[in-house]
Structure formats: structure tokens, C-alpha cells
């Protein structure tokens, strides 16, 4: 490795000059610090990996058991759907079941967090979630595209999912006026948006993706969608006979609740003020330490109770999740203290806040970005990373 200390050159236009006067000077993180941070984080990972065992297995099996019980309870209560309290309780149980299945189970299992158990029931290579997006497509669009390229403009498709303007670096055009509206639509139909994620429809429109790239996705969608729609909107409603419309509405509501919740949690992960975005140039040939630092700076946590953390699938610990995407998520709270201390030690921001505050922050950003406004001080990068450029591996 040759050491070539290169101060990072931001690609931001000097348009930000006006606000630069009011923005605090960015922290400059030295290349040495980057390397130290990388080693410390590797040590945390090694320690947790070595400690995985019965308790972690028991934990996830307990969550799965709870989810299944909630689901069966919700389905059973729909048979009493003519009683409003029973209908409401049924929707609540089903919503909770879907949230657990989506967040703490599905998302985390498909990250390979429990692959070490070698249990077919909870292995990333075979797990399917209660969601219309096929798991293999999710592992590509999420685990690979998003987690490898976190917050890199034009690589991380989670920045706006191809339809939203989430960062100032994304150019404005009149279509952006609909930004909050598109966001609302995406929130309500989130599982469908997630399903379409791997399509990269904008690249299809631009002619960058061929029919052959897309064709393979369709069979997966059809297979998954058919089962999901049949279950929630045909078979279960039909089972309740005359209560068909009530059960249909109950299942629809539960899916909506899950969609709104998942969207809200996920949008709090990378877009609140304080989370940085990066360019492809400044992240080319990253070292391990640089990759770690980008994950930390690009992610934001949500503070709250243990119950909140469970309901978010521990994505409330988005920073820790992005550092260690395949460590069991229920370990993030214990890791978080060390990560936070590491950030403080090196003067790095550790973005976090209560859910309502982060949600409000994200929505206000989506409204502001609908308009061609200049960035505010909160939108300027807080950390400049001094890069240690690696020669390509021999």
C-alpha cells in the first residue's frame, strides 16, 4: 500500500458559498484516524461473532414465535370482524405480525444475520418474507446495491428510489414539484415500491436496461405477488364467508399500516439532516476503514425504548446496522455504545433523534427539495475525510 494523502475534494458546487459562512467548519478526519476506526470496528465485529450462540438462536426463535402467534390471532379475530373491537384488535395483531415479519425477521434474516445457525428456516438463501418483493431480488437491490454503495450518489438507489429528490446533489427539474406527493404514494404502497426496486425503471426508460435484464424479474414478481394477493385479499376473506368485505378491509389496513411504518423507519435511516452523501470519485477504491466511516456518516439512528427498537427491526440502530449488516440486529444496542464512543473520540457526528423528530425532518426535507432552493447549513457536509488512496490490490 502506498500512502498518498489526498484531501477530499467535494464535488459540491460553490453554490453553497452563501451558506458556508454560517455553517460550522467541517471536521477533518485524518487518514490515520480512519484506519484506527476501521481496526476498532473490526475488533467489535470479531468479538460479537465469537460470542454468537444459544442466546441469539433463542432470541430470534422467540420473535418468530411471537410473530406467528400474532398472525394466527389476527386471522382468527377476523371471524369476529362484525364486532368493531374484534376487527380493530385483529387489524392491530395482523399489523404487528406483518411489521415483525418485515423488520426484525425478514429484513434481518435476509441479511444473513442468522446464517451462522445453519437452520433452513432462518437462512438468507431460502427465507421468504410476508411481502410482495421476492427475497432474492431484495438481496440484490438492498443487501448489495444499497449496503455496498450506501449514500453514494447515482449508485445507491435508495436515495429517492429513482423517483424522489432526497439530496441537493440531485438536480432539480419541474417534475420535482411533486416530491412530497410521490413520497406519500410510495409510503402507502411501500411493499410494491420495494418490489419494483430491482427493476430500476428509470434506467429502463433511459434505455440503459434491456428487456432481457427485466424479464428475469417478472417471474419472481408474479410468483410472489400471486400468493400474497391471494392470501390477504381472496382466501382469508373468503374463509370468513359473509364477512368477506370486513376481512378484506382488515387485511388491507394491516398491509397499509406496515407500509407506512416501514417507509417511515427506513426513510429515517439515511435522510435526516446530519447524514452525508458521497460521490463516486471520493469513494473509489475505498479502504476498509473508509468504507466503515462512510457507513457511519451516511446513516442516522432513532432513539427510543427497547420496544421501539424491536418494532423497527433494530433499524433504529441504522448506524450499527450499516457497519455490521450481518450481525444479529438485537446485538446492535450493545454495540451502539461503543460505536458512539468511537465517534465522539474522533469528533464525528452520531446522528440520532426520536422517531417523530426524524420523520418530521425527513418530510420537511422532501418538501424543501421539491423546490429549487439552495442548501441550508444543516445540509453541508460535517466531515471531510482525508483519504489514503490504495494502489489496486496486487
Amino acid at each position: 500500500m502506498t500512502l498518498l494523502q489526498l484531501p477530499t475534494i467535494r464535488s459540491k458546487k460553490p453554490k453553497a458559498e452563501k451558506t458556508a459562512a454560517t455553517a460550522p467548519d467541517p471536521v477533518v478526519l485524518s487518514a490515520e484516524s480512519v484506519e484506527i476506526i476501521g481496526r476498532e470496528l473490526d475488533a467489535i465485529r470479531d468479538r460479537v461473532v465469537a460470542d454468537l450462540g444459544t442466546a441469539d438462536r433463542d432470541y430470534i426463535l422467540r420473535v418468530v414465535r411471537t410473530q406467528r402467534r400474532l398472525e394466527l390471532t389476527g386471522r382468527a379475530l377476523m371471524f369476529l370482524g362484525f364486532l368493531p373491537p374484534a376487527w380493530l384488535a385483529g387489524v392491530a395483531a395482523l399489523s404487528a405480525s406483518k411489521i415483525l415479519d418485515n423488520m426484525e425477521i425478514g429484513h434481518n434474516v435476509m441479511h444473513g444475520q442468522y446464517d451462522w445457525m445453519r437452520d433452513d428456516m432462518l437462512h438468507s438463501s431460502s427465507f421468504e418474507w410476508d411481502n410482495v418483493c421476492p427475497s432474492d431480488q431484495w438481496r440484490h437491490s438492498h443487501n448489495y446495491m444499497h449496503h455496498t454503495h450506501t449514500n453514494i450518489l447515482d449508485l445507491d438507489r435508495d436515495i429517492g428510489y429513482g423517483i424522489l429528490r432526497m439530496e441537493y446533489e440531485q438536480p432539480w427539474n419541474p417534475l420535482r414539484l411533486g416530491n412530497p406527493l410521490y413520497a406519500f404514494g410510495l409510503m402507502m404502497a411501500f411493499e410494491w415500491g420495494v418490489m419494483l426496486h430491482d427493476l430500476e425503471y428509470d434506467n429502463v426508460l433511459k434505455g440503459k436496461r434491456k428487456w432481457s435484464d427485466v424479464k428475469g424479474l417478472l417471474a419472481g414478481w408474479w410468483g410472489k405477488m400471486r400468493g400474497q394477493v391471494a392470501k390477504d385479499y381472496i382466501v382469508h376473506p373468503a374463509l370468513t364467508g359473509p364477512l368477506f368485505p370486513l376481512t378484506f378491509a382488515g387485511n388491507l389496513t394491516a398491509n397499509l399500516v406496515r407500509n407506512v411504518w416501514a417507509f417511515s423507519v427506513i426513510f429515517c435511516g439515511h435522510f435526516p439532516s446530519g447524514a452525508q452523501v458521497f460521490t463516486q470519485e471520493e469513494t473509489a477504491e475505498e479502504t476498509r476503514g473508509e468504507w466503515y466511516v462512510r457507513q457511519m456518516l451516511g446513516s442516522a439512528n432513532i432513539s427510543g425504548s427497547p420496544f421501539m427498537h424491536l418494532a423497527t427491526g433494530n433499524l433504529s440502530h441504522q448506524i450499527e446496522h450499516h457497519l455490521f449488516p450481518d450481525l444479529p440486529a438485537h446485538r446492535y444496542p450493545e454495540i451502539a455504545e461503543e460505536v458512539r464512543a468511537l465517534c465522539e473520540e474522533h469528533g464525528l457526528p452520531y446522528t440520532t433523534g426520536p422517531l417523530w423528530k426524524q420523520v418530521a425532518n425527513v418530510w420537511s426535507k422532501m418538501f424543501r427539495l421539491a423546490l429549487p432552493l439552495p442548501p441550508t447549513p444543516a445540509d453541508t457536509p460535517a466531515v471531510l475525510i482525508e483519504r489514503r488512496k490504495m494502489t489496486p490490490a496486487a
Partner: protein
Amino acid sequence: MTAPTISRLFSRGITRTLLTPHPVEHYVRSLGVTWSDDPTGATVVAVDRPVADVTVITLRLPAGVDRPAPGAALEIGVVVDGVVHRRHYSPVDSASRSDGLATIAVRRHPGGVVSEHLWSEASPGMRLLLGNPVGEVTLPEARPTDVLLVSGGSGITPMLSIASTLAGEGHCGDGSAGRVAWLHYARRVEDVPFRDRIRELSRAGVEVRVVPTADVNPSDSSDLSDSSDPSPRGPAGHLTAGHLDEVAPWHADATVFLCGPEGLADGLADALGAERYADVLRERFTASNGPVPEGDGGTVTHVKSGVSAHNAGTTLLEGAEAAGLSPKHGCRMGICHTCTAVRVSGATRDLRTGEVDTEPGCLVQICVSAPVGDVEIDI
């Protein structure tokens, strides 16, 4: 089985749709329902430790799960420290046993995760995971007239099943057309489990010899030399053509089954000649964790594509690419799990943790795993 079992009923369309995307078995397992139809698990009903290093476990198989054919093995999953370890064990009892029970014998290996765990932990009521039965060779439906069984060490179990099945069917003994002989090799006779069963088989007409290969004391060549044993003296030492001639002078036309270590196989090949040996039905020991070679690197065989290439110790992904393959992959740093593939055999090192893993048939991330010795990978 005529009536559809509950699990079969439940695996049909409507129930699949009701519970989609999770399979019925997963609901059963995760809800902790003790459901005799759950095809993914079996309950231990009895445990015996007849000799110093063998755990004999009797399992109740779920309704709808058939016993493996004689000679084939059950796939048993045991959870140790949160990790599921899968091993294959041949039931030792007759395939015609109809009470839904199956008995397996597990020999302790020094450092063996599963065998040590079962030795110390197995008790009635314990739940074991169940996979699909496996077996390279099983007793054919149309039973061969003359059968010669040769086994060594843990190879005793599939032979017990074959011999018990044949004996149970009255295939050998007085007045029957067939002949069955069995040579089992063990270091010492007193280490051999199921000696009572072997005596029963002997009485049922199976020409059986337990052959000690070490510490041979002429006055004590067989522990079976009690009054009930029709053949007090037998061969000793490693397999020779003489052993075969003594126990089964008719073996030239017999169907030969073999299950045992390489040394025994070599001995049998010498005794029979290459041409005859080619017809031997050999059940291999399911690859137990063998010794791990020193240092990274080895020959990597890509099972699906049939390409073999030397890998000097780089990742399996890079090795495959250098060999002209293009396996599915994503992040190349071990985080996305898109490149996961089955390591059929051999040892690999996780380059992030340095840990070496040898468990056969396991899924590994090829972008962060390097071969340690020769490896077969399913790409």
C-alpha cells in the same frame, strides 16, 4: 400409507396459500407444537449407551415420514451452541419395523461436535431436526439371492439394517434359498455395539463374524464365544481372501455391500480383484470432519460446471473467476450474501475471522472464503 397424513393435506394448495410465504412446517416448528406429523423433527424416545463410546438413540419418526430403505441413512440435525449440525445415521433395525420407531447408533469421535453432544445430552423427549434420507446404496427391492456384507467401524450400522431386514424376511437360514454372510471388522470385539443383535442375526441364519483387527489374543479372538454363539472361533486381523472363503465360500456370485474405511476397501479390492470389486455396492461414510491440511490453497472442484482449478489461497469467488466461471456475486466483501454457495466437501477459511470450517454440505460466502486443502463447491 393410504390416508393422506395431516402434513400432506396441509402442504396442498389452499393451506400453502393461507400461510404463504412461510411453509406449514415452519409454523409448526416455531410455535413449538409437538405435532407428530411435523416432518422436520423427530422425538427421542429412548437412549442407551451400551459400550464406552456409542450412543444408541431410538427416535419416533413423524407420521408420513417413511423409514429410509435398508442401508440408507436419516439426516439428523442437532443444535449445539445455537448452530445446527447435520449428520447422517443409518437406522440399525429392520426396515420392516412398523411401529414408527427407528434406532440409530452414534459413535463418539474425539472432538466430534455432534457425537459428543449426543453422548452427554441425549435423553428421552429431546427433539432432533430431521432432513431427507440419504444413501448411495440400498438393498434392492428385488432381493439378491446371495449377499455378502463387509463393514468396519461405524460401517456396522447400514449393515445391521440390511442384515436385519433380510433376516426378518426369512431370506436366510433353514429352508430358504438365499445366503447372507457378514464380516465386520473392529479393533477390539468388546468395542462393538449391538453384539446381542448380531447374535440374534447369527441364530437367524446370517453367517456373521466380528473380526478383531488389533490386540489379537488367540484365546480371546471373539467375544461372541459364549455358549449361544454357533461360531466360537473366527478370522482375525485385516481382511484377506481367506476370510471371505471361510465365511462365504459361495461369495463369487454374491452381491457385495461395503461400508468402512479406506483400508478395508483396499483389502476387499485385493481379495476380490479389480473386476469383481467394481461391482461392490459401497456406502461411504458421510464425510465427517476430516483433518484440516496445513496452509491455505488447494484444488477447487466446481461441481455444477465440472471445472477444477488450483487455488493458491485466494477467495473461492476469485478462483472461480480465474477459472473462467462467473458465479453470482455482489459486494465482494462478505456483506450481501448473494454469492452464498454449498461447500460440498473440504475446508474453507473465513478470511475475515480466520476461522476454518469443515462441515460438509454447508453454505459459505465464496467472496470471503478461501480453500484450505481440496474443496468441492457447488457452482
